[in-house]
């Protein structure tokens, strides 16, 4: 392989990592927003909110890296995907505005707190749905002519994209509940455990439905999963997911605190790897490959120098910031 092919694959891996980091870190964060109305007004809501207040901004930065990195490393795909998914992307951005400011505003304005709590929830739900719809719309394919998006502005809306939208909503809810099970105690924790028992089977059902649907959307998906000898490797993905599900059920029964969160992330990690199997080497199914969309090697190499130094550094100080706010979150907002 020549250098530019290696670079392109490395950048695909880095961006996949950024997107997965985003799902890992903002998933529970958005999940808490989705579950917010279920929590009692007052203590329970304040506790849930406070558990993510110091970290939400850093979590969303991975989304900016995903977008900015896509523009830098695969500018053609960035332009086509963003204009094809105009409505869900704009909806997601506006939703993130609402839920982002709610963190500060709800404390500044007790009289209007119900409004900002609603903004927090509506923003979180809309962002999760929009992200899932974006994923589904990408998987089902985007109409491209030359170097432009050639479809209409409602093409993204299909039963499949709605299914993936709901799947992501469900997955984030589960992550949010798992996070609270870890970070809180008492009534809030019990509440979180009940929610985990609801959202875990729903999420598993969603993963099954999307997995079952995808191979029938086109021969290429079928081939990537079931042709010999690929199937010997790809078959490991569902097998490991079965194993992890069993461990998850066991950790629920034994009231473990951290294990459900980690196991859920592991399941999502594998689902994400499954997406990779479905997509590679395409960035936009059947029309734009990674190589088609890649920025010149000089651009990718320039960024790789920075990324290989900075990403480990970022992970280190992000970990430190989580460490500072480790442990269970108390009910008091401040002292």
């Amino acid at each position, binding site marked *: 392989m020549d250098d530019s092919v290696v670079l392109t694959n490395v950048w695909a891996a880095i961006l996949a990592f950024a997107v997965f980091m985003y799902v890992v870190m903002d998933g529970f964060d958005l999940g808490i927003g989705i579950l917010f109305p279920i929590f009692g007004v007052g203590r329970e809501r304040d506790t849930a909110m406070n558990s993510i207040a110091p970290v939400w901004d850093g979590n969303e930065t991975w989304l900016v890296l995903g977008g900015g990195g896509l523009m*830098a490393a695969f500018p053609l795909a960035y332009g086509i995907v*963003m204009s094809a998914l105009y409505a869900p992307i704009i909806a997601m951005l506006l939703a*993130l505005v609402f839920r982002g*400011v709610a963190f*500060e505003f709800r404390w500044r304005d007790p009289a209007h707190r119900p409004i900002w709590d609603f903004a927090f929830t509506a923003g979180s739900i809309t962002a999760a749905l929009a992200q899932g719809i974006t994923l589904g719309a990408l998987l089902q394919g985007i109409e491209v002519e030359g170097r432009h998006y050639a479809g209409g502005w409602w093409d993204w809306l299909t039963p499949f994209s709605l299914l993936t939208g709901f799947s992501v909503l469900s997955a984030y809810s589960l992550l949010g509940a798992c996070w609270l099970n870890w970070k809180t105690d008492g009534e809030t924790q019990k509440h979180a455990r009940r929610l985990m028992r609801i959202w875990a089977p729903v999420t598993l059902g969603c993963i099954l439905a999307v997995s079952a649907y995808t191979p029938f959307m086109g021969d290429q998906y079928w081939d990537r999963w079931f042709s010999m000898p690929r199937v010997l490797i790809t078959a490991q993905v569902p097998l490991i997911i079965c194993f992890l599900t069993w461990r998850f059920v066991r950790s629920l029964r034994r009231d473990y605190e951290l294990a459900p969160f980690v196991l859920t992330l592991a399941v999502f990690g594998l689902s994400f790897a499954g997406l990779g199997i479905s997509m590679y080497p395409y960035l936009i199914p059947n029309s734009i490959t990674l190589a088609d969309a890649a*920025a010149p090697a000089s651009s990718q190499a320039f960024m790789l120098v920075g990324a290989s130094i900075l*990403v480990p550094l970022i992970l280190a100080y992000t970990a430190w910031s989580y460490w500072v706010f480790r442990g269970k979150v108390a009910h008091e907002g401040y002292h």
Partner: protein
Amino acid sequence: MFHDADALLLARFQFAFTISFHFIFPAFSIGLASYLAVLEALWLKTGKALYLDLYKYWLKIFAITFAMGVVSGIVMSYQFGTNWAVFSDRAGPVVGPLMAYEVLTAFFLEAGFLGVMLFGMQKVGKRLHFFATLMVAIGTFISAFWIISVNSWMQTPTGYAINGDGQFVPAAGWLPIIFNPSFPYRLVHTVIAAYLTTALAVGAAGAWHLLKNADHAHARKMFSMAMWMAALVAPVQVFVGDLHGLNTLEHQPAKVMAMEGHYQSHPHGAPLILFGIPKDGEQRMEHVIEVPKLSSLILKHDADAPLAGLDSIKPENRPPVKVVFWSFRVMVGLGLLMLLLGVCSLVARAAKKLYDWRWLHRFALVMGPSGFIAVVAGWVTTEVGRQPFTVYGLMRTAESASPLAAPAVATSLIVFVIVYFAVFGMGTWYLFRLMAKAPQPHESDPPNAPAHAAGITPAPAMQSGTNNAVKGPETTHG
């Protein structure tokens, strides 16, 4: 119904609207982060509780400003793709990596340390907390560095080649791209603008509380610090602005012609048009008040030097004079008023009346929002002045947009306008409410700190001010 031209115009409105709104917040948070770092350093050095009180007071304001800057900034990072797909495809290989570096070096740094800065006072040591404040402050500056580099490259593109797909790609190395000709001037001008904007906002808050209680120690301190900043930095800004203008004359003469209102060339010295009504349709100025030959003197340092006008530029390459002419005058006018405020504060300080002259406090109060207005006016000048290009001289705005149907863009624009005015309107109101309250001894922390339940509670770093509470009105500096 709608046509392509409408879709383009709507996309331009949307970008202008969202970027103008967005930039107001970083203009404040770049300056505030540095101000907070200074306050915390002074507290650590002197141990005076007053500085910690001021720190906590402005920290709460910073938290809201920063949150609004983050969420409006995420919009910008995706809007290049949603609305300017062709630009993203073609210029992405050059500007994309610079923006990726902004995320990697600045956004993560700010976000990673913001939590500790806002909520970590009780959890980490004093020095580590100061380090977090410093990292956030440095992060805001690094962010400005990269994004201004991107903007400057679009204004004065250098170091590029064009490949077979029509993409701009780096020709030889990245330094000529990053340090393009207008970058140093624009960076310094913008960062100083942020400092000045913050100084005026802080000064106005101080003035407001001095007007209510001239003995208020905290109000005195912040008013004094802000007026020092205004007095020292406003003249520097005028000087840097002049250099930036000369740089623009060299690289984007059409923009300067629009700023000056020079439709016609002046072979024997051009007048400085103070006021007039630009008529783009007829390409001439009406009702002009002008000083003969002064423009040539300022721009060429020679009263009789010839100065070309827009008649020397192809009609399809001319920027709209109407907007640029006025936005430039708004910026310069406000800049001169800032200079005046700085001078007045120096006079008051010399006369030992800094806290007594109520007209000075009223003047500073009125000037509170002037930085924000000047900053937006300045950006309007430089962005409208480089039209009709996105990459100056090389790629037209008209060929940069995404192939979107006009109703899609119209809908998103309407929603952006409604949401931004509602959300950021409320946010601004909360900022005013916080500033309307005077800083207190034992100023509280931000309210939403995640307290720990039990077990791990590191030694509180900051048992604030119990030993060294405010000792009467602070003595003045100078």
